[in-house]
């Protein structure tokens, strides 16, 4: 007998192809004050903008992993049902462990898509930090390199503020150079993320070969919120 699960029913009701995106967010002590407030505002903007898009709202799926300590603050949920929660600062910066948790979450979710015969897009992992890792990142770096090489996910590294360790971010997002957030422009960043997920969630075909060769995707310009240095 087929097991009846809430998840299975969700997929039965919504057969749309899914566009998964996991936010891996640094909420360590250094984010206290204005940065965490701006981040929370940005998440609320992400919730609002994705819901405005009639296609993205049923296709884009969001999950949130916070560090530290590493916590799955939000397992994958379709944008329509995503409610931005207030994140609070806590603990140190186990960035490597957080990235591994996120990549595991992605693989589990993809298996659920396959089990339920639902198509899906290449997952995005959005790794954001304002500091340097407090754990060893060797294992995470290996997982990240493997994920990019095998096409399991695309990892984007985002540094916040002058103390963000861009070298580590580059090691953990080997497919593309990390971006540095302009000031605390989280709102603009999440608006961009929403827009690019909306674009991706439509079937504008790209070449599998080009993506593996890291040909740049046609995404909106990032200069409203980020720089590459």
């Amino acid at each position, binding site marked *: 007998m087929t097991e009846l699960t809430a998840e299975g029913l969700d997929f039965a009701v919504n057969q749309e192809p899914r566009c998964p995106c996991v936010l891996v967010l640094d909420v360590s002590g250094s984010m206290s004050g204005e940065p965490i407030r701006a981040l929370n505002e940005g998440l609320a903007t992400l919730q609002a903008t994705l819901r405005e898009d009639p296609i993205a709202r049923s296709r884009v799926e969001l999950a949130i992993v916070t560090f530290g300590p590493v916590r799955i603050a939000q397992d994958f949920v379709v944008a329509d049902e995503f409610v931005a929660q207030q994140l609070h600062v806590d603990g140190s910066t186990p960035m490597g462990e957080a990235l591994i948790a996120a990549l595991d979450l992605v693989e589990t979710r993809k298996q659920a898509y396959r089990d339920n015969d639902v198509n899906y897009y290449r997952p995005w992992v959005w790794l954001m930090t304002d500091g340097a890792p407090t754990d060893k990142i060797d294992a995470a770096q290996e997982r990240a390199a493997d994920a990019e090489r095998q096409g399991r996910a695309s990892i984007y590294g985002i540094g916040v503020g002058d103390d963000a360790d861009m070298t580590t971010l580059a090691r953990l997002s080997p497919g593309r150079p990390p971006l540095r957030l302009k000031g605390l422009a989280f709102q603009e960043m999440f608006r961009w993320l929403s827009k690019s997920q909306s674009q991706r969630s439509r079937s504008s075909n790209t070449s599998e070969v*080009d993506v593996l060769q890291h040909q740049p995707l046609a995404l909106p310009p990032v200069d409203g919120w980020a720089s590459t240095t």
Partner: protein
Amino acid sequence: MGQHDLTGTPAPARWAAVAAQVTGPAHAQAGGECEDSFAAASTADGEHCFLVVADGAGSAARASTGSRLAARAALHALLLHAPQAPADWETVARAVFTTARDALVLAAAAAGGELRALHTTLLVAGVVQVGDERRLVAAGIGDGAIVVGDASGFRAVAVTPRGEYANETVFLTDGRFADRIALHVESAPDLRALAVMSDGVEALAVEGRGTRPVAGFFGKLVDHLAEGGDPQAISQVLSSDRAALQSDDDKTLLMLVPDRRTEP
């Protein structure tokens, strides 16, 4: 299968091609053109008929040019090669895909641009006569679907190998194209309908990653056309709000159905 069961309708002596194409709402809103192309023809003696659909990649700069050149070159090559070797579909199909790709390589070189600016899928299908035997032939690279209707219902053929991700595919213009061509040939005495469609239509009408045609969708179309219904109605279905919600991509559906003018 119910009312869409094709058992009992006679195998047609001649075929008619019916096409419906709508520009996807995303392209229409942006003032863009349809990036799908199609072509259809039969040989002068009516022995062999072919359908071609090409879908220019949304991410490619000259997508509509790519699909148009590929569809045209493929149809010419089909009409040239298939009558010479109707029994050897694999050789014919490979020649057709190579010819179409060559046309794109030349066009890219002439424009001084990259081949990837012309990224396109290519699906071809048709009916060929080999002596007394009627054969259904199909081949494709990239997404989109080829659906056959016969006495046992509707099924997808030449299902192209799918990558892991919904919006990523291998194009005619990619380096690995020759390994990724899906080929199909079968004896088809009971063939009643053949449909070739771009992925915008596949999103509405074929489930399970291009493997399971929605019988109700194709059955209703075939019934509609068999009853002399206006082919324009198909375009209206493809441009409906409901279809737009399923896919805002361009939608092209090209079908071979029995030619009513030759039916009793």
